[in-house]
């Protein structure tokens, strides 16, 4: 299951990144809080495939399907 599959109002823990995510971008995602072991909540899943809003501790980020589907959660 990936982050993109999370339904609005549900949470899951980041398990790993898919291999296609570049190393530098992986570091940035970790710095933003999308860190393996971190609990992420999907706070908003707008319709029509718009980027979804994910809460990581005290910050909310918007991620589109191209990146959210590269982050595996459990």
């Amino acid at each position, binding site marked *: 299951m990936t982050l993109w599959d999370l339904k609005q109002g549900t949470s899951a823990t980041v398990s790993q990144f898919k291999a296609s995510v570049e190393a530098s971008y992986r570091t940035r995602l970790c710095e933003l809080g999308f860190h393996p072991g971190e609990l992420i909540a999907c706070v908003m899943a*707008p319709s029509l495939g718009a980027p979804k809003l994910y809460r990581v501790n005290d910050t909310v980020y918007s991620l589109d399907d191209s990146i959210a589907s590269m982050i595996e959660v459990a």
Partner: protein
Amino acid sequence: MESARTKIALIGSPNSGKSLLFNRLTGLNQKVANFPGITVDISSGKSLTGDSTEYLDFPGVYSLHTISAEEKVAVDTFHKALETGQLSAVVCVVDSTRLEKGLIFALQVIETCRRHSTPIVIAANMVDVLDQHSMQIDTQGLSAAFKVPVLAISGKTGMGLEHLPPCIAATSAPTEPFSMASDIIASDDSLTHRQAQQLANTYGPKGDLLINAQTRLDTFFLHSWFGGVSFFVIMYLLFQSIFTWAAPVMDAVETLIQFLASVVLPLVPAGMASDFTADALFGGIGAFLVFVPQIFVLTLVVGMLEDSGYLARAAVICHKPLRLFGLTGKSFIPMLSSVACAIPGIYAARTVDSPRKRWLTYLAIPLMPCSARLPVYSLLIAAFIPAQKTLGGLIGWQGLAMFGIYVFGIVCALLVTAAVSRSSVEMRSDLPFVLEMPPYRLPSWRPLLRNAWNRSKHFVTKAGKIIFIVTVVIWILGYFPNQGASLGDSWLGTMGQWIEPVFASFGLDWKYGVAILTSFLAREVFVGTLGTLFGIEGAEENFVSLSQQIQDSGLPIGSGVALLVFFAIALQCVSTLAVLARETGSWRLPTQLFISYSIFAYAAAFATFHLVEFFV
């Protein structure tokens, strides 16, 4: 040689309120710092307290580990300033309402400052928001943990700022690496992250109050229906405000110019001096000054939307549709900034981290309806569209026409990027869409008004210089050799007749042709040139508005609409071309855009004229 002035760098993540703090510390004494050979703007400003302190506002970055060329330039500049001993101290600004994110960055900056033996102070910004919700941050605890001073401040209200300069002066460079009692064994990144999380949990504000409030508003502004409707209402109000809020001030400016003309003209000796004052000064420059209030209002409203946090939501709403046109939601902010002016739009495009999407954003920016087009649009709309209102006075036809021509520019921009993104396979590298959602905040009026004022001032001084020179040259060419007796027989008239066939194809006489040619320096020059030309020709005793004179000249509506279309597309701005060349590192893209958009503009204006004339 090192400057005697004390230089203090402000560094922080985007949305940490760093620029608001910088404005508080420096007031109006700001300029863009001169760091040769780099393409990031670092503002510098003298301290308001009158001492020899100079603050440097570095661009906001999320991390000292960079992922884009722009971030790398900003971070390298910071490192270089530290290495060469240019900085007396560093102030790392963190948003205390979202402490964990700020602390990850702060830990990196503290370590970097330690390595370069540079004093550092952590400014925990936005404590006014915490106060409003009876929340607190334990700065003493954080100071003890970091072994560097942490101050609770508010760049918005000025709270705690009096302690910042003495604290900076008293602090010394951190000497030992930051460490915490932690049993976590992991990579550097992982460790920094865990440390920041632990520190934020121990010393930061508790509870979900702020984030819950933010989520409630997001539920509305990103709702499938309400979100879309509110987006269109906000954008529509933006364009109506240009007319409804600015109109009284524009009328006042016009009345003032008329009054000045009536006072000054009788004092000037009759003949050439009087003709010059009436035609070139009041006719040419006066016609352009009338539009400054609209630029002020536009900059103010765009700034208000940005500071409120709404623009990030608009980027989310626009991401999927913009992706159809090869762009990204992040292109929305540079494109909207370009509605004020293409130049800040081009700079804002740095936030588009994907090189390919940024390049496509550059193609869209010159087609966005910038404020320099506003005088031309306003003039033509005032001349051709009746100033009537409909739906009980809610919607004005002129506002609607303005909305229409703005939408036309935006549609052209999107069609160009869609076509190019599908045909061009250059620069395939791409970065994904990850955008921080800043909290919703009530905008702070003072910096917004200051920004709008600076933008208007910049417009008057920069464009005003060009307009003055062009106006004088045009007046001389139009006045001689027969002392204004007949404009058609003047030097300008002769030149105009050479180029008349080019613009005659959409029903314009040579006066408009000359005005279009001069407007390739800057679009708004069109209004000044036309004002001067009509002034020489008409030689009225009284100041008559230029739109009235256009109406009286009997220009066909097809030509008016063709002119609007021409100005919506053509890239008539020397500054935009120069800034694009600077940002892209070569003149290749600006040259390509200038030629292709000129041809596109001419062809579209030609087609529009014939279509309108056929149907009307």
